[in-house]
C-alpha cells in the first residue's frame, strides 16, 4: 500500500509542474506590470528599472519561471500588495475560516445523505424516495447564490433571528465560548446553503450506487437465505455501493472548496473564496498565484485520497 501511495505521489510531481507553468502563464497574460505594486507611485524611472531588475522582469520568460519556481519551493510566495504582508501570512487565517465553515457541512452532508440514499434505493418509488428525488432535483437546479440571497432576504426582512453577514458582529471582541457561539450563529445560513447543495448531489449519487447493487443476484440469494433485511442491506449491499461513495468523499473536498467561493461571497464569509475574488478583482497577482496553487494542490490531494480510499475498499483494484 505504501508503495502505491508513493507511486501516486511521484505521479503528482509532473502534474504540479504543468499546473504551475499554466498558472504562471495566466498571470503573465494579465494586464499591468507588477512593478509599482511595491513602489511609491512617485518612483523615478531609475528606481523602476532597479525594481524590474530585482524582480527579474528583463530575463527571458523561462528564466523568470525558474526564478519564480525556486522562490515558491523555498516557501517564498512573494508579498501581497493588497495586504502589505507576505502572501503566506495572508492566506493562513482565511484558509482556516473556509475549513471552519466547510467541515460541519461535510459531516452533515455525508451523515444525512448516506442513510437517505440507501433507504431511497431500497424503498424505490416510495413516498420517502420521491420526496428526496424532488429535493435533489431542486437542490441541484437552484443556484447557490440565488438561494443564499433568498435566505438573506427572508432573515433580514421577515424574521431577524440570524445574522446574515460575515463571521462575527462588527467590532465584536468576544472570546472563548461566546466567540464560538457567535461564529456558529453566523455559520447557520451559509452552512445551510452549502449543505443543501451537497446533500442534493450526494443523495442522488448514493441512491444510484445502491440501486446498481440492490438488484443483483447475490442480494436475492442473501434474502433467500433468510438473512435479516438489515444485514442484507448494510452488510451485503452497502459494502459494494461503498466504492463510488469513497470516490465521492475525496472529490467532495474539491467540490466544497469550489462551491464555497460563491457562498462565501454572498454571505461575506472571510474565507479562501473571498481572498481569491479580492486578489482577482484588485489584481494582486502574487496572492492570486498562491491561492490558485493552493486550490490545485488541495484538488490533487482530494484525488489522491479518493484513489487511496478506492484501493483500500476494493481489493479488486490493482495496487501495484
Amino acid at each position: 500500500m505504501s508503495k502505491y501511495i508513493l507511486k501516486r505521489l511521484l505521479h503528482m510531481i509532473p502534474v504540479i509542474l504543468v499546473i504551475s507553468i499554466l498558472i504562471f502563464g495566466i498571470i503573465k497574460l494579465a494586464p499591468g506590470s507588477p512593478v509599482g505594486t511595491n513602489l511609491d507611485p512617485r518612483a523615478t524611472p531609475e528606481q523602476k528599472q532597479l525594481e524590474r531588475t530585482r524582480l527579474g522582469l528583463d530575463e527571458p520568460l523561462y528564466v523568470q519561471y525558474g526564478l519564480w519556481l525556486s522562490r515558491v519551493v523555498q516557501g517564498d510566495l512573494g508579498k501581497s500588495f493588497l495586504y502589505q504582508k507576505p502572501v503566506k501570512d495572508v492566506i493562513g487565517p482565511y484558509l482556516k475560516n473556509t475549513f471552519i465553515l466547510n467541515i460541519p457541512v461535510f459531516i452533515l452532508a455525508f451523515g444525512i445523505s448516506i442513510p437517505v440514499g440507501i433507504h431511497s434505493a431500497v424503498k424505490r418509488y416510495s413516498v420517502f424516495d420521491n420526496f428526496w428525488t424532488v429535493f435533489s432535483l431542486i437542490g441541484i437546479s437552484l443556484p447557490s447564490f440565488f438561494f443564499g440571497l433568498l435566505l438573506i432576504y427572508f432573515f433580514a426582512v421577515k424574521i431577524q433571528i440570524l445574522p446574515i453577514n460575515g463571521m462575527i458582529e462588527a467590532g465584536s471582541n468576544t472570546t472563548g465560548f461566546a466567540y464560538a457561539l457567535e461564529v456558529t450563529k453566523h455559520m447557520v445560513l451559509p452552512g445551510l446553503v452549502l449543505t443543501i447543495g451537497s446533500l442534493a448531489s450526494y443523495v442522488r449519487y448514493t441512491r444510484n450506487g445502491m440501486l446498481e447493487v440492490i438488484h443483483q443476484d447475490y442480494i436475492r440469494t442473501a434474502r433467500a437465505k433468510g438473512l435479516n433485511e438489515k444485514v442484507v442491506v448494510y452488510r451485503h449491499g452497502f459494502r459494494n455501493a461503498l466504492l463510488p461513495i469513497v470516490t465521492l468523499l475525496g472529490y467532495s473536498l474539491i467540490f466544497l472548496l469550489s462551491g464555497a467561493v460563491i457562498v462565501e461571497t454572498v454571505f461575506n464569509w472571510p474565507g479562501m473564496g473571498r481572498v481569491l475574488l479580492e486578489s482577482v478583482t484588485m489584481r494582486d497577482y502574487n496572492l492570486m498565484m498562491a491561492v490558485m496553487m493552493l486550490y490545485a494542490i488541495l484538488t490533487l490531494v482530494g484525488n489522491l485520497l479518493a484513489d487511496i480510499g478506492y484501493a483500500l475498499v476494493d481489493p479488486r483494484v490493482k495496487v501495484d
Partner: protein
Amino acid sequence: MLTVNETAVAVDVNKAQKESIEGPWQMAWKRFRKNKLAMLGGIILLVLVFGAVFAPVISPYELDDMDYSQINKAPSASHWLGTDQLGRDYFTRMLHGSRVSLQVGVFAVLISVVLGSLVGGIAGYYGGWVDNLCMRIVEIVMSFPFLPLAITVSAVVGARLPAEYKMYITMMVIGFLSWTGLARMIRGQILSLREQEFMQAAKALGLSDKRIILKHLLPNTVAYIIVSATLGMAGAIMTESALSFLGLGVAPPTPTWGNMVQNARDFYILTNRPWLWVPPGIAIFLTVMSINLLGDGLRDALDPKTK
C-alpha cells in the same frame, strides 16, 4: 399454389411485421414520451427557447429604452416585471437575458462536446502513448478546481477585452474546462467498441483512421454524448450565471440572468426591490431544472440499462 385466402394471411403477416419493427431511436422516443417529468422539462425548455429566439419581437419595449419618469417602479400592467434604476423595462431585459444565457450554454457545450469526443476518440482508438498523453492532459485539466480557475481566467483574459466580448470569453472558459468528463467516458466506450467485429471489417476495408473514428466509432457513442451534452448545458448555464453574478462573466449592459441577480448585492435593492433580482433567479432555476429533467429522461430513454 396459394389460395386467395392464404395470400391475404401472408400480407397480414407482412403488415404486422412492419408495424412491430422499431429502430432504437423510435424505441427511445416511446420510452421518453412515457416519462411525464421529462416531457414537462422539454416543454418548459421549448417555451424558454421560443422566448429567447423571438425576444426582439415579443418584448414590449426596446432593450435599451430608458424612461426617466418610470425609474424603479414595482411590477404593474404596463411593466410586468417593473423597471430598473435607469427606467428600463425589466421583462424586456429578462427576455433578452435568456438569449445570452442560453447562447452561452449552447456554445460552451458545443466546445466541450467537440473537444471531449475528439480527445476521447483519439485516445481510445490509438491507445499506447497517445492514450497516455491524452489522459495526462485530461488529468491536469481535471486537477484544477473548476470555479476558481474559471474566475481567474475570465478575470485575467476579460480585463484585456471590451465588455461586449466578455460573453465569448465566458463561453470559451466554460467550454475548455468542462470537456474532460466526456473525454474519459468516450475513451472507455471506444476501448470496448474497438474490439468488436465491425471494426475488423472497417480496417479490412482499408478505411482511414479519421473516417473510422468519425464515422464508425463516435456515432456508436452518440447516446452518451447527447445525455452528457444536455446535462452539461445545465451546468454551463449555472456556471455562466454564477460568473456573471460575481461580475466576472457577461458584463452589463449586455443583460444575462446572472448579472441581473447581481443587483441584489446592493442591500437596499435586496430588501426593497425584490422584482429586480427574484425573477431572473427563478428563471435560472427553472431553466436548469427543466434541462436536468430532460437530461435524466433522455438518459433513461436512450440507455435502458441504467434503469
